[in-house]
């Protein structure tokens, strides 16, 4: 009886394949949320970028002036280029510094491994603001590093160039986003079958060769995931360059924030935001073309 019923059910299921299976309706609450709080605000932002801001607020006149200003005034393009450059440099730097750490973690064993991984997590449980701010008392004229150097007699006077320049921003970005780079790479390496490495070694490969030919390619999903994440975060970062960058390391996030918080030019801010989002989505699309978007975001787990 049961078997016949099951067969009937299965047969009828196959007979009429549905475009919309009822189980799919489970996505509806989330879908409503995404539309209301995700899509609608973005559309509103896009519209706002085509309006005009005056000192009396926003006038809903449709015009392209904001975009014209952005593309003709070299200030914005210059800052955009600088932002991309800083984001790229920070990503590369972060990758170079994080990969060996991830490798180290993945090759640890047992209880020690969990403890070591936990130790990497811990600093990220201080607030993001503190993780950025902390470099001021660390690198300032009266800061810790200078005081140690003076005490050791290495220098006669405090070193100025630790703080308030582009280099400090790199340092700050690498520091605050280290977990985002280390974790995916670690997860990727962790899933690596150690037998593959053993096999390579037994076949006579030198450690360097094993690394380049076996380990590195297999950790690529994690590397890509981490790099994408850090690059995206760095493109939009706002607090870190403001605190650490001094007079020159202005990034796009700062300009956007100032339109909304200081200059009261929401329309221009909206246009700048649209451009940043388009740029970032563009980079993602290019990365996705080569490596597959799903792999990019979910690759670290597979």
């Amino acid at each position, binding site marked *: 009886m049961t078997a016949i019923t099951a067969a009937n059910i299965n047969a009828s299921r196959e007979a009429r394949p549905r475009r919309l299976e009822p189980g799919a309706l489970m996505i509806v609450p989330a879908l409503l949320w995404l539309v209301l709080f995700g899509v609608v605000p973005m559309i509103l932002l896009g519209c706002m970028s085509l309006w005009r801001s*005056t*000192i009396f607020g926003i006038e809903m006149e449709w015009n392209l002036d904001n975009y014209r200003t952005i593309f003709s005034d070299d200030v914005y393009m210059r800052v955009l280029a*600088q932002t991309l450059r800083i984001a790229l440099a920070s990503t590369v730097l972060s990758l170079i510094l994080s990969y060996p750490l991830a490798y180290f973690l993945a090759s640890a064993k047992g209880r020690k491994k969990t403890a070591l*991984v936990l130790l990497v997590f811990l600093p990220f449980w201080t607030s993001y603001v503190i993780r950025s701010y902390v470099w*001021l008392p660390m690198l300032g004229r009266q800061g810790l590093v200078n005081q140690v150097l003076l005490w050791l007699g290495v220098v006669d006077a405090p070193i100025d160039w630790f703080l308030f320049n582009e280099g400090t921003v790199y340092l700050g970005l690498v520091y605050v986003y280290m977990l985002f780079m280390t974790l995916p790479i670690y997860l990727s390496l962790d899933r690596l079958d150690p037998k593959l490495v053993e096999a390579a070694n037994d076949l006579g490969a030198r450690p360097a060769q094993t690394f380049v030919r076996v380990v590195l390619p297999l950790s690529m999903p994690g590397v890509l995931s981490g790099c994408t994440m850090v690059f995206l975060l760095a493109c939009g970062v706002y607090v870190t360059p403001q605190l650490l960058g001094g*007079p020159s390391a202005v990034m796009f996030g700062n300009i956007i924030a100032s339109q909304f*918080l*200081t200059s009261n030019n929401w329309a221009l801010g909206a246009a700048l935001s649209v451009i940043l989002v388009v740029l970032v989505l563009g980079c993602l699309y290019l990365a996705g073309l080569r490596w597959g978007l799903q792999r990019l975001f979910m690759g670290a787990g597979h």
Partner: protein
Amino acid sequence: MNSGRDGITALSRRNLLQLAGGAGFVAMTPRLARAQAGNIDVLVPNAILNAPLRGILEKAIGAKVADAPFQSTTDSVSRLMSPGGTSRYDMMISQTEFSKTPILGSGEGKEKVLPLDLAKIPNLAKLSETFRPDVIARNDKTYMIPIFWGFDAVVYNKDVIPETDELTKTWGMIFEDKYAGKIAWFDTAHQMLMAAGLYLGKKKPETMTTAELKEVGDFLISKKKNVRTIYTSFAQCTSLLASGEVACAYSPIPVRVDLEKSGKNVATAWCKEGVLSFSTGAYIPKDAKKPAIALAAIDAMLAEDYASKLTAASGYLSCSTAGTAALSKEEALRLGYGILEGATAHYPLRFPPNISQWVEVWARVKSA
């Protein structure tokens, strides 16, 4: 990491519920307490609520004052102008010159603020004559009343820069090369360009033409190499000067007051081109929820209790005569009231009609 993930299931649902319940109960209590008394939401320069001023004000109006963090006049006006901005706060105070045009709206009937019932502000009679022109009205309806005034100047560290130095008498201290690497600027277009304009000899910087603005912008760009950093909040400025990171900075009053309170050896540079003076006025946004209490607050700030303690606690100076009534002549001079009598050069921070150009020039300076 698999062990970590499975391990987390050990936190049972019951524990989480207990935690939620307990925390929820504790969280309710302050909210209940706040809901009983009235309270008003204000956006004002936070220094004017320093102890004991907050207590005096709250006692006078019989309500608590919840103040949001004040960043700058431009930020405050920006919030008022934004969609939904007229209902966020019950009372706001910001620089008169900058705020008066936007808050009045583009025409009659388009004001963003409520007309003030002067019958409820008897202390208006105590307003100093100097500030009568700063009462902003349109067609017999008053919209903005001056409360306090202040000035921006350069604050410098006397341990590093001797008082006898020539540069302590001019805005040039934060521009010239002598103290390169020890200077901080304030991240605002209006003030910085005004100061630079004054230093470069412009008689009326607020009327600078596009060409003159470019000249000022280029000058600032050429001097940017002397700047250690450009700060965005008063507290950052205080921190920079206190830690010795910079030796001089464009500073609003609260910075000097905070530094002096901590015993730092700082002084104000009385720039001969004129320190940048401004008055600030109070106004009530159109859709404020508690306009009556806001009105009472405005009245209380002009009364003797509050006004006489204002300068000592915050550094700002009261527009009400009640502010100096109890002070001796020397005390008044020391606190800065001498500016009003011409003892010190000052230039009013007037609002330029082409402010958006100023903002652009400053953006160019920052990104150079």
